[in-house]
């Protein structure tokens, strides 16, 4: 199992804590021992000064005033254990014996009858040293307390590592649970630190990625669904054209199929590429007028049969390119299915645009093309956060489009 970031952080904190404890413990011991040695050395030097002064006054070596220090007149007078470890030329030395004794030696150079003479001061400091004794007597307690403090430090390190890493672990867990098409929400997104920024960026990026994937899936589905029927119609027209010259109706159907496919492809690409479809303000009345005028060039229809009940300007929120598709589709279908004598009414009331047309009585209803386009109409209006509803009656057909009005 790979180490998690929490275990790594805990190991780093714990290692740092233990290392710091060991370093300070070692430093404290060194300082204690050095202080002890310096203290003994100072005592020897003070005693050496006193002995030297008495030598100058009385001309003979006198015993030390301290019962710790012994004055020796020559090197050979020193105990054998000391002589084995301290050479005659050494000015000072420290001796540890196997019997547990601890000596400090200081050489004292005197002058006798014009001749130099080296004497030695030997201090048996084992009885007065406290550090070693302290270590022996209360070492267990000190070690126990130290271990308890280290354990407490490790516990704090564990708690700290857990607390520091918890937001990251939560972020990783939520990222691991993300599923295609599922809701995207990171609980750390509101933090003001780098983790919050990371969560927010992850959330945004994942949401955008999902939107792109959904558009790609919708594009593939729409292409399959929307282009199959016009392609079939065109294929049939071309097959008939091989047998006999294409009649005017056939040519019109072929042209209509090409126009439909071009418009459909444009809209499908717009839907697939658009990142934020709504957002622009579009004058819907202008679009309707433009659309009707274009259709009047193609269809033989008397414009006096049109009833327009719209405000002077109808501003809605939508995509200019996509807005034309539902209008073109609805109005072209109204003219195509209603025939040259149909009445068309376009009205707006309370956020709803209604497009209705009358149907010729007694004629079979031709809804093939209209039904084919409804799926794409739904997708387009949904992309602009509009809503579209179809109402089919015996003598009329009405489409209601619930618009997103300009705020």
């Amino acid at each position, binding site marked *: 199992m790979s180490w998690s970031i929490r275990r790594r952080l805990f190991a780093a904190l714990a290692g740092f804590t233990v290392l710091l404890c060991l370093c300070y413990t070692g430093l404290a011991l060194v300082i204690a021992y050095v202080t002890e040695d310096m203290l003994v050395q100072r005592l020897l030097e003070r005693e050496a000064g006193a002995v030297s002064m008495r030598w100058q006054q009385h001309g003979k070596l006198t015993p030390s005033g301290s019962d710790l220090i012994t004055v020796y007149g020559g090197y050979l007078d020193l105990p054998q254990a000391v002589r084995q470890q301290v050479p005659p030329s050494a000015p000072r030395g420290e001796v540890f014996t196997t019997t547990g004794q601890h000596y400090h030696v200081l050489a004292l150079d005197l002058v006798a009858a014009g001749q130099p003479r080296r004497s030695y001061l030997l201090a048996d400091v084992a009885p007065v040293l406290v550090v070693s004794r302290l270590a022996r007597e209360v070492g267990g307690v000190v070690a126990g307390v130290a271990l308890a403090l280290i354990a407490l430090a490790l516990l704090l390190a564990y708690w700290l590592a857990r607390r520091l890493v918890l937001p990251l672990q939560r972020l990783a867990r939520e990222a691991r649970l993300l599923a295609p098409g599922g809701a995207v929400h990171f609980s750390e997104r509101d933090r003001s630190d780098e983790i919050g920024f990371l969560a927010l960026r992850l959330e945004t990026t994942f949401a955008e990625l999902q939107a792109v994937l959904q558009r790609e899936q919708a594009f593939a589905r729409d292409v399959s669904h929307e282009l199959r029927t016009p392609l079939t119609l065109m294929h049939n027209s071309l097959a008939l054209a091989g047998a006999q010259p294409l009649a005017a109706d056939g040519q019109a159907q072929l042209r209509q199929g090409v126009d439909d496919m071009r418009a459909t492809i444009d809209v499908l690409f717009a839907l697939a590429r658009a990142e934020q479809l709504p957002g622009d303000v579009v004058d819907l009345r202008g679009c309707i007028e433009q659309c009707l005028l274009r259709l009047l060039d193609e269809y033989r229809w008397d414009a006096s049969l049109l009833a327009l009940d719209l405000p*002077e300007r109808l501003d809605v929120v939508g995509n200019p390119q996509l807005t034309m598709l539902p209008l073109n589709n609805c109005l072209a279908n109204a003219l195509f299915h209603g025939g040259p004598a149909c009445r068309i009414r376009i009205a707006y009331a309370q956020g709803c645009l209604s497009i209705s047309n009358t149907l010729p009585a007694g004629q079979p209803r031709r809804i093939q093309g209209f039904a084919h386009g409804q799926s794409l109409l739904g997708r387009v209006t949904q992309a602009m956060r509009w809503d579209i509803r179809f109402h089919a009656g015996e003598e009329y057909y009405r489409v209601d489009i619930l618009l997103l009005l300009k705020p």
Partner: protein
Amino acid sequence: PLTQTGFKILLLLCREHPHAVSRSALLQQLWGSQPPDSDALKSHIYALRKQLELVGAAGMLVTIPQLGYRLVFDVAPPP
């Protein structure tokens, strides 16, 4: 004489010939995003039509009810 607005309307209609120009497009082109009511446009169209009558082209400016206007040229080719 032809007014400046009348000339602009005529120019726009000529540019789009043989297609019609929508009422909203004319309002937008003439007055931008804050056009006056449609009566102002009707008045200018009326004045333009009167000017065209003076040169014998009264039927050239065709109204498409509620939607827009179109120019229709019915000019005989020169002999």
